[in-house]
């Protein structure tokens, strides 16, 4: 999968590239409107990440240009402005998703994967996890033929960890994914722990869940 990251903050662009590379994406960088337009004319991408606040041009204009040269790509708008109208305008203009800075990198990757499932019809069959099987589309967890009831948030947590398997996710990364970045006055909430405990309790009835690891002082990881 080829990704074009159009972001004028070079450090930020490098960090995104570094992270996505580990998830086996091929990344290309553009640091200005002009560079972005050039690269879009020369290459075909699967994903285009556009920062709205480019110094030499409007991100929305770039989006509409890009859609002509790369009609099949998936577009994600990145912005520090975080305005509601930007989000609406971006989605209206055909962007596939919208992320307000600062965002966690696993969140970016999971959004890209969600678009892939939706747009490129990458239909995953049941994903095996220890003795369990997970259906990400229908949001079910099976033990053999039996369906296990998880709450919405518990399933979100499990599938997010699964998507980033073999990578430790911090409680912050997890809670921002589960509860969104809506404003909360607590900064040291360990509510993720309670959910993990519940997941383990529900699944342990059927089979051991040693694949769901607690990494002390850091967070949680699914090991496969």
């Amino acid at each position, binding site marked *: 999968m080829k990704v074009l990251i159009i972001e004028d*903050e070079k*450090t*930020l662009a490098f*960090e*995104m590239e*570094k*992270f996505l590379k*580990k998830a086996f994406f091929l990344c290309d960088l553009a640091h200005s409107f002009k560079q972005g337009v050039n690269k879009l004319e020369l290459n075909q991408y699967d994903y285009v990440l556009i920062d709205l606040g480019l110094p030499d041009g409007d991100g929305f204009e770039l989006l509409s240009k890009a859609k002509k040269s790369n009609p099949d790509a998936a577009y994600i708008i990145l912005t*520090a*402005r*975080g*305005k*509601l*109208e930007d989000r609406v305008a971006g989605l209206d203009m055909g962007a596939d998703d919208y992320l307000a*800075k*600062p*965002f*966690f*990198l*696993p969140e970016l990757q999971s959004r890209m994967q969600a678009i892939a499932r939706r747009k490129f019809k990458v239909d995953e069959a049941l994903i095996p996890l220890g003795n369990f099987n997970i259906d990400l589309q229908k949001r079910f967890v099976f033990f053999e033929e039996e369906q296990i009831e998880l709450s919405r*948030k518990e399933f979100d947590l499990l599938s997010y960890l699964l998507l980033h398997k073999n*990578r*430790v996710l*911090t409680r*912050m*990364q997890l809670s921002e994914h589960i*509860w969104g*970045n*809506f*404003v*909360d*006055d*607590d*900064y*040291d909430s360990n*509510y993720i722990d*309670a*959910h993990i405990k519940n997941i383990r309790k529900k699944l342990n009835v059927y089979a051991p869940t040693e694949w769901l690891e607690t*990494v*002390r*002082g*850091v*967070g949680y990881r699914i090991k496969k």
Partner: protein
Amino acid sequence: MVIELRSNLKLSTKLTLFITGSKLAIVGLFILLLPFLIGQIASNYTNFSLRNQQKKVLQNINKKGIDYYFEGDNSYGSYTMLKDEYIALETVAQTLKLDTIRDTKRIVEQDTIAYRVLSFTFQKNQKTYLLEIGKTTASINLYNDALQRFALYVLIILIALSIIIDLIFTRQLIKPLGQIIKLRLTNSRFPFKKKHGNINTSTQDFKYLDHSLISLMDQINEAFEKEREFTANASHEFMTPISILQNKMENLLTEESASEAVQEHIVDMMKTLERLKKISRSLLLISRIENEQFSKQEEIEPQTLFNEIIEEIGHRLEEKNIQIDIKLSHNKRLGHINHDLLFQLFYNLINNAIKFNKENGRIQISDLLEKGYYTIQVSDSGQGIKAEDIPHVFDRFKKTGHAENAGYGLGLAIVKSIANYLNLKVQVNSIHGEGASFKVIFETEQRMSKSIT
């Protein structure tokens, strides 16, 4: 007491009191002086008429000779029928010289009567004559009472008339002041966005006052606007550096070379950064609300809203084993609100109710009609708020709780800006140690009209 009372009066009342008071004082003084004045006038008039009669008598003597009166006798006297006037003429010693008017008593046919007497001596045919013209003092003051009464009535009518005219005039005169107070101060709500109509006045001072108020409000608005802009810009500007730091740390965390100890340090740094991020986001949210970047055209049923909130926050209730009772009996549908903002408002209130609650505590959510307004109340059995802290709970960065669970001090500041934006009123009641209760009052009439049947 009187001074205290007066200091609270309206200007128009004060003017009325002053005008009436000063006029009554003048009238009072005049009434006191009136008998004296009228007496004086009557007395002067009497003297004048005595002199007139003297002139007439002397003219007669000059024309017709002294015998016209004496008729051979050497004295002359004449009374009116009721003895209230008399005239007397007689010869006196050569040396006597008199020209006086004085009050004295005369015995007239066995009656002692008080008279005002003009005594005048004159020479005629080498003889000296004394002319006396008298008028009873009773007759002098005969009309005084009637005159006084008449003067008093006229005066009272005139005073009443002038007070009425003054009142109408002053009322008209200070009317623009009331309009200015109503239009610029009472009816205008900060921030003063709407430019209200002009005040119609020809009084220079009121024009000046009005213009000064308008320019003062503009200045306040400008300062407020600048602060708002600064907050918005500052929190925006923080987002990019926070982004860079956060993403760098995330990548660092996945480095294979990072030991467990290093990873823990990185997570600690991420927690601190998370705090900075949430503060910036909260400030940004406040400035976005203040910049009116949210729609107000949504509707919601409170029950649905609370179900959504409980779904988000339920795990926190479980953690502290807090029992929550939601009793909404009015079946209202709230209109002209923003769903996300109202969600955030009640989320913050409930979050606080959990945060500052004790283990196994309670939270009660109920609705009521207060003064006809639909009101939702969130009460908890937590530690409550100290009385001296209550006025500051909505201030930004004001942390009144215990340090361990204080948060950033922006939760209630957000509640307040949302309430302002959606025209809601939030009231706090708390007894320290026994819990706190927040009332959200939906003060717009149309909210009441929609009811689900």
